[in-house]
């Protein structure tokens, strides 16, 4: 990995941040808590790096320990984050019947 790759990745980073601002500013405030728990799940994407870290046989014992711990913590975020967001979103319901009007 070198600085050229870094520039290329930085390019992707900048575009993604702008995209993120656009997407998130359209999320209504009633959904801000599910948004945060859903982001927790997405930040668990580090799991991808952790899998390689835990599955590689090149490194030391410490490497494997670090990798395995990373897999576990990232998996908590992914599994816990998606499930709790799902549970929460299931609670948001529209009104079923129109209330009686007095006027």
């Amino acid at each position, binding site marked *: 990995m070198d600085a050229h790759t870094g520039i290329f990745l930085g390019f992707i*980073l900048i575009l993604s941040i702008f995209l993120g601002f656009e997407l998130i500013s359209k999320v209504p405030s009633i959904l801000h808590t599910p948004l945060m728990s859903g982001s927790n799940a997405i930040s668990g994407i580090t799991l991808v790096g952790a899998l390689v870290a835990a599955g590689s046989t090149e490194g030391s014992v410490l490497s494997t320990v670090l990798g395995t711990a990373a897999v576990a913590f990232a998996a908590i975020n992914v599994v816990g984050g998606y499930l709790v967001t799902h549970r929460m979103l299931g609670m948001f319901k529209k009104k079923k019947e129109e209330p009686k009007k007095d006027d």
Partner: protein
Amino acid sequence: MTDTSLLINLGYIAAAVLFILGLMLLGSAGTAPRGNLLSALGMLIAVAVTLLDRQVMDYRYIVLGLVIGSLIGAVAARVVAMTAMPEMVALFNGFGGLASLLVSWEVYERTPGITLYTALTVYLAVLIGGVTFTGSMVAWGKLAGKLPGRPLLFRGQQWVNFLLLAAALALGAVYALDPGSSYGVFLAGLSVALLLGVFTVIPIGGADMPVVISLLNSYSGLAACAAGFVIGNNVLIVSGALVGASGIVLTRIMTRAMNRSLLNVLFGGFGAKASKAGAKLTGEAKAATAEDAYYVLESARSVLIVPGYGMALARAQHAARELGEALEANGTEVRYAIHPVAGRMPGHMNVLLAEANVPYDQLSEMDDVNPTMDTVDAVLVIGANDVVNPSANEEPGSPIYGMPIIEVDRARTVYVLKRSMAAGFAGIDNPLFLKPNTYMIFGDAKATLQQITAEFKD
């Protein structure tokens, strides 16, 4: 590019697209559940293709980590009470940061003759991940009541933070001179990052948690980004950037709703001492009973319920919904007005009320409610204080002056359900309580609401 790595990268593109679609669908409550499922599908694809990577030789530890993590995550997601969502999000912010720290450390541990570029990105990821981890643990401690919620301030605190940051950068420079043989320096930098996380969050008070938790959410995304730079992986960068942007957007919404700058939240120690500014309030609040409130509510056409963190503490959301239903059955229009910083995290009150089966079309934002305030016959303020404090509009000396509030004082009658006359989290007196159209109903909010509802049933 080999066939396998092509497949892996195509999988990552699909994952990134699904994450983006997932966030788009979060634009309305109706489509949000589908968005969450798409996002989860994206994650599944990303994980599945990664297992094809030729660097992955040994699956034993992967399975071990996945089983432990998934079990903890699944159980936590199932048992957590909705009142405890801020704690859970704080913990998850921290775990996200920690996972990125561990992944980056592992790269440093595994790579002999590490390049300067990788060494620097590792250090950056460890710094951000470390601050996110311990900062989130302190935030969790405060939210869960394991640590005092008030700001913990000591003299020279900002100097300590400044020195820690300077030490982190200096250690980074020393480490960068010869990364391969600077393991000790690396570990020292890691420790400084962990300390920095503790010291930056410890001075921030409980009422400012919505800001802190949003900011740490952003950091956890940035930590994933940094880890993406370490391992040269696009999907980490895209996902991390989305989360980072999300946290920043939420942080801005929160600080605006408090009329404060982010720096003021981080370094202000707001609420550490009761404010001396502003004239001492004179006059006496009028107390009312549940029965008094019933007679007014019974003839009201439009009622507004304003929840605050006190509603979560009293677990009064179900009682509020029952009263709301009784009012509707009586022909009254009922709305719930939610201030952006009510509760301990963005959207906290909405989730509690949704859990209590309040339909989401009754949940109104501050900006939609205020213009209609003159037509509201009665307001029930349940455990909210600073977000309805008219000092924000009327008293230029007040610490909250300029903060947007729900202007309940303009409604015809206001009932404030409150335990006692104690000040809110900001430690500021609330002149609302002394207004001629305001009545206090002291006692447990849940019990009070149930009493009023019972009157409707008689």
